[in-house]
């Protein structure tokens, strides 16, 4: 396949994944706003903007962090070049660029996703319909994933698609975890203390992990245990260990199809080995923030290596 097409496919799925994760983040904030006081809610909205890396563009326009304003900025503001709708448009553009490499079912799912969200986001979102809008985003992105899973050949195209998904997901999970922890823990001394369990709940909710975690831990909210779950547990599909196990399978398949391993395989093997050897105690001892910053940079290096190894650009 063409290097340029691989690039489009990779980014098509990165954008879809990021749009979906952004909706999850808003859902968690929305819930926080419903169940907590105004101050806690506004802090939560600030953390959403920080997590998404929008602080500069947001503060250029607005002076305070109110829920619906943040939601509209994140979902549809034309000043925000990485709004959810802009990401869906980028995803669709990439799908158009690589139409010959995706099935009609995938194309139609993406095109319908774009049409539906264009419609839903045509007017400012209100508190009363925010829930519906977020549900629509999740449903439409899920349909794209379903069409991909159900209709695509398991060939190099599919492996680039999935590699894009897991690179992006690992990045998003690491960022969410980093920002939430940072906000919730003024100092590491608080680790293990019984902070408001509702706040910890939002960390899990932002990653749609609350049910899984509660189920596995009989409802106990333990910050260290949560971090372990989100970083090292192989069973949780938005967790870092899971993402890298999947990413590893797909880039191993790419190496097999191309007849040799490349830089990205080497980098990923090293990252996986580090993860395998890590314990949550060790991570906290040397600093969770430092660990996550290092992870995000390493993840970026793997993405760059994939682009270089497979000639995404000249």
């Amino acid at each position, binding site marked *: 396949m063409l*290097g*340029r097409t691989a690039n489009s496919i990779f980014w098509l799925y990165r954008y879809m994944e990021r749009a979906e994760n952004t909706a999850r983040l808003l859902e968690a904030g929305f819930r926080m706003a419903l169940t907590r006081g105004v101050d806690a809610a506004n802090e939560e909205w600030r953390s959403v903007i920080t997590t998404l890396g929008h602080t500069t563009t947001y503060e250029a326009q607005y002076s305070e962090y109110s829920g619906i304003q943040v939601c509209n900025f994140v979902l549809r503001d034309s000043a925000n070049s990485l709004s959810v709708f802009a990401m869906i448009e980028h995803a669709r553009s990439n799908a158009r660029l690589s139409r010959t490499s995706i099935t009609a079912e995938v194309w139609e799912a993406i*095109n319908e996703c774009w049409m539906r969200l264009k419609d839903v986001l045509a007017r400012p979102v209100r508190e009363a319909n925010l829930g519906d809008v977020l549900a629509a985003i999740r449903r439409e992105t899920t349909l794209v994933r379903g069409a991909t899973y159900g209709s695509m050949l398991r060939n190099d195209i599919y492996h680039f698609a999935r590699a894009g998904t897991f690179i992006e997901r690992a990045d998003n999970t690491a960022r969410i975890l980093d920002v939430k922890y940072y906000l919730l823990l003024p100092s590491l001394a608080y680790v293990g203390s019984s902070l408001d369990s509702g706040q910890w709940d939002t960390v899990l909710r932002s990653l749609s992990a609350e049910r899984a975690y509660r189920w596995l831990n009989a409802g106990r909210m333990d910050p260290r245990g949560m971090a372990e779950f989100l970083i090292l547990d192989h069973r949780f599909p938005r967790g870092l260990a899971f993402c890298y196990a999947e990413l590893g399978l797909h880039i191993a398949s790419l190496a097999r199809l191309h007849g040799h391993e490349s830089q990205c395989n080497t980098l990923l093997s090293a990252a996986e080995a580090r993860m395998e050897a890590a314990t949550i105690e060790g991570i906290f001892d040397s600093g969770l923030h430092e660990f996550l910053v290092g992870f995000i940079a390493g993840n970026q290096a793997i993405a760059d290596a994939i682009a270089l190894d497979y000639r995404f650009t000249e």
Partner: protein
Amino acid sequence: MSIRPEPNFDEMLEADGSIRPAYRKYHAWFEAQNPALMRHKDKEAEGLFRRTGITFNVYGDSAAEERLIPFDMVPRIVTGAEWRKLSRGIEQRVRALNAFMHDMYHRQEIVRSGRLPVRLFTDNDAWLPQMVGFTPPGGVYTHIVGIDLVRTGPDEFMVLEDNARTPSGVSYMLENRETMMAMFPELFAHIPVRPVSDYPSRLANSLAACAPDCAADQPVVAVLTPGIYNSAYFEHAFLADQMGAELVEGGDLRVVDGRVQMRTTAGYQPIDVLYRRVDDEFLDPLTFNPTSLLGVPGIFDVYRAGGITIANAPGTGIADDKAIYSFMPEIVEFYTGERPLLPNVPTWRCAEPDSLAYVLDNIAELVVKEVHGSGGYGMLVGPTSSKREIAEFTKKLTARPGNYIAQPTLALSTVPIFTRAGLAPRHVDLRPFVLVSPNGVDITPGGLTRVALKQGSLVVNSSQGGGTKDSWVLDD
């Protein structure tokens, strides 16, 4: 049904209001349908097109970046007998076009014989000196041709235009049929319609048959597009997809080891046949427009050395020029030794003083077209123009008469379209798609029918309010 035939030829209705044979079965079916359901189906069609993303981009129109070409759900129908006759005329014309191009880039016998004025190619930008003395692989110049036909009577089809560069619209022919089959499967169960869906595989075979000698057993075919913002991008992607070929852009290609190669994830891989949807002048910045980013530097040298087939060949624009068009009857006779089976629309060449005088005297009755224009732009339709428009156009015409031709305003045939009030007649043309390879000339039964949706309008171009229809050739 309360529609009366207009004075022009109506393809469905006889003068007495009875139904012509081609439409009998369809009409009987239509009459039995519930009108409310039909209106509902009509709306449904637009949704189908939007969802599948069959859109075209309009240059300079950012608000509606992607538009749909309106689709009318009443098929345009010709009988098998009518089609067989048409096909013979089309094949004759396409063979003549290829022979003409070979001649124009070699001995120019037709000019030496005095049948064609030398100015027609010396003054013509579409004639490429770089092609002189070179014969493309398989001897084929126009691998894909679209012949625009109009009808004025039961047996009167005329050629309005030959599209020998990169005719577009074939994806609409295919998608219109798919849409009709999805909407009205029962129609196709009862009426035998010749299929069009194998066009992409016929195109792939036809292109592969034109591969250069250096190609492998299974030639690698790629479609070259100017990119996502081109108005026909959908069609480029559609055809590549349907053929199982790569859709490439200039940035994917470079000349490596004397071959044109595409950058794949596993390195550079040679292309044998390039179906290019990029104009000649953008094809090779080293040979033509040096500022072009759409093409491939050096591709022309590879081409001349026999390392790749370019379809259509560069320089085929010489044959779809409107000035050359007016000589097509002579061209057909010269190269085939036969009388043309398909006539031209009568054409006055304004370069000739007598013709110019006639055109100026009768301009209000004529259609005047720019020789190098396309898409319905830069033309004057006398009968529907104001005095001021005619006066302005006359100025341009007298300043550069060689730049114009004129034709009578034809009583184009009408076919029914679906409106809220029922069936209503509208003017149409027809573009059949023709494939040429050393194995022969292959014409897909039907083609693209374009329809002027405005009552009385004669302009069928999609850029000016035209729509399309499924075109049926009956298997009888």
